[in-house]
């Protein structure tokens, strides 16, 4: 779980991929311009993306950034 100033950053990338025609990690990686390993790290909550990357991922799924990434208040 990635921690940002004591908050846990969670994401819905895995669910959104499956909701979008079973998109593979490789396909998502190509569309947002990163490696597949980064998508794996993101899904596992082990990497907090930069703002541009978060926006690109949200754009691929056609949802707001909050629809992809959530900051949990309670740790």
């Amino acid at each position, binding site marked *: 779980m990635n921690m940002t100033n004591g908050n846990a950053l969670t994401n819905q990338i895995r669910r959104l991929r499956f909701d979008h025609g079973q998109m*593979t*990690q*490789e396909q998502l*990686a*190509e569309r947002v*311009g*990163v*490696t*597949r*390993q*980064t998508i*794996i*790290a993101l*899904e*596992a909550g*082990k*990497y907090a*993306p*930069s703002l541009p*990357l978060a926006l690109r991922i949200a754009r691929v799924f056609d949802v707001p950034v909050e629809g992809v990434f959530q900051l949990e208040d309670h740790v």
Partner: protein
Amino acid sequence: MTPLQKMAWFNVIVFAVALVCYSVLAVLLGPYPACSAFALCAAWGFGDRFLRRRRGGDTVVLDERDLLIQRTAIRMGFGAFWGCFVLACMIPWAILTRLGSQAATIRAEILPLFVVGGMLVVWMARSIAILVLYGRSRANEHD
């Protein structure tokens, strides 16, 4: 395995080979001439080939996470260098002072070894840090 990991493994393997050569030469020629074995580490220059984009390919070789890991590893490499440098300066001083040989001198030939040794420490610490940082964020690789 990412290109950066491949480069780090390449660096570690080259260093291990140089270390084996040094051990053999140290027995045959003595420790100081055997240091020439570390010239093999010049092969580290070829490590950059792992980071090059394939001809005609448009897949991403290094992304923001790789660059972040690389930056952190470089910082750790220089941190390790500074730690080793301080120890290399302070330990002989502490020992010689305790033995009462305050007028002891260090041979000038040692100084280039400090430079080469420093480079080896930075490069190796950086490579190991890259492997550790990737290992720490490894997850199950499946779709």
